[in-house]
């Protein structure tokens, strides 16, 4: 279930060009993270994959099938979608929320419910919460229900739009690690949108750093991006939050341009180029953070 964008442009009715000539291959069964600052077009990209938004020009394919030829409702039912603030139906109990898509697909009620209860286990929620309404859950629990709903129809593709943006840092970190565990078990094609670069490096097998108009500033494995930020923009973007990462430059190569960074526990976090001694701090990728914990 690979997804491909080919020269996709989205111009809204008010002439805003949210996405400008965007091309990207999103590999099957891996997590691709789209990261960039607010308004750069991340959500628009994501919503074009399930035809909530149709491109003005260009083609999007899923396994080489042009999605413009697929009926939107049918397409959406085979793609999981998780958004910020969960997007749950406030008038349906947790278990019915999780069962939403299977029920829409005509799965018998008892079967859909049983499967929904299993999914609550999968995302680490107590089955006792099944008969509550979403408003009776904490933000973190709601997001877990959102993830369970996204997985309910066993889709091959899971779209996640800042799913952990509205919960506190501790719960966010919990949810992130839960997602990593889930992804190890399930191997979905995950497209994850965030503006948090730490989250992007933690979760992504492929990280795509975007500028305004969804222009790709750099894409690659977190390690490649850390070692070799392609532009000033990328360097400053990945180094934006230096305090938290407690990184320190320890060694300069002979040229005086390359700096090795270590995190607070002494693990090597990355290598950056710092021409003229101007330093931009980088961060650890997920292996290092695992070592950190």
């Amino acid at each position, binding site marked *: 279930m690979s997804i491909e964008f080919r020269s996709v442009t989205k111009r809204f009715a008010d002439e805003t060009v949210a996405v400008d000539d965007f091309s990207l291959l999103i590999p099957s069964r891996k997590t691709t993270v789209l990261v960039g600052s607010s308004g750069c077009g991340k959500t628009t990209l994501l*919503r074009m994959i*399930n035809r*909530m938004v149709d491109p003005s020009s260009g083609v999007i394919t899923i396994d080489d099938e042009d999605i413009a030829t697929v009926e939107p*409702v*049918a397409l*959406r*039912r085979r793609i999981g*979608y998780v*958004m910020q*603030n969960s*997007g*749950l*139906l*406030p*008038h*349906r109990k947790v278990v019915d929320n999780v069962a*939403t*898509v299977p029920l*829409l697909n005509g799965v018998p009620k008892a079967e859909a419910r049983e499967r929904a209860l299993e999914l609550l286990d999968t995302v680490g929620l107590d089955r006792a919460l099944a008969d509550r*309404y*979403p*408003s*009776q859950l904490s933000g973190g629990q709601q997001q877990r229900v959102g993830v369970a*709903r*996204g997985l309910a129809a066993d889709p091959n593709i899971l779209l996640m739009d800042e799913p952990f943006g509205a919960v506190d840092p501790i719960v966010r970190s919990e949810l992130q690690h839960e997602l990593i565990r889930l992804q190890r078990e399930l191997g979905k094609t995950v497209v994850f949108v965030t503006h948090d670069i730490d989250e992007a490096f933690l979760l992504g097998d492929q990280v795509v750093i975007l500028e305004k108009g969804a222009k790709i500033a750099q894409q690659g494995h977190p390690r490649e991006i850390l070692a070799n930020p392609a532009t000033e923009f990328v360097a400053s973007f990945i180094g934006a939050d230096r305090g938290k990462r407690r990184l320190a430059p320890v060694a300069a190569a002979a040229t005086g341009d390359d700096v090795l960074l270590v995190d607070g526990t002494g693990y090597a976090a990355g290598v950056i180029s710092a021409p003229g001694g101007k330093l931009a701090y980088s961060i650890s990728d997920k292996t290092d953070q695992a070592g950190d914990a």
Partner: protein
Amino acid sequence: MVWLWQNLELVLGLALDHARLSVAPVLVSFIASIPLGWLANQSRVLRTILLTLGGVLFTIPSIALFVTLPVILGTRILDEINVVVALSIYAVAVMVRGSADAFASVSKDVIGSSTAVGYSRWGRFWGVELPLAGPVLLASLRVVSVTTVSLLSVGSLIGVTTLGYLFLDGYQRSFPTEVVIGIAFTVIIALIFDAVLVTIGRILMPYTRALPTSSRASVTRVAAEVTS
């Protein structure tokens, strides 16, 4: 009280007629307001047109309606259909506004996310928009039901048997007891209607208390608006 016992049959008969005639306008307004209220949220122009139309209909004097409806409908002037139609028009006029507000109170995020997970337009209307608009719709419907029950008394002016007869008769005979009993029974019918609506609401919408406070707040706001 003695008068009431002596005339119990008359009073109960009038009360039954009164209740019977009140049902149709309430039902009609509920059913008509759902597509109209939904339409009013599809475009600003439609909203303006529908709400203005509702406002205009509501200002037509009832007597004028009673006299013109027979001409339009081809009914006899004393036919009770005229009163039912007239009150239905008022009820729809009020409900359109309430229903437009009800559908407007449904969170755009929820509509968006239900579309994203694969609801069709039709399925989303029945499965998401209507149930979420429900509590606000019910609030308006309760106002309409009380208003209809009380307005129906006017029907007696054109010879339709309702509790209004007791007001007229009591007034003409300068017999306040009869008027008071007429009022009391009107209030009782209104309360019964209200209780029935609330009960139906509880059964159909057990989730009402779990909805976000914003939509519950708009229930009270709508109730205040349609009555003012």
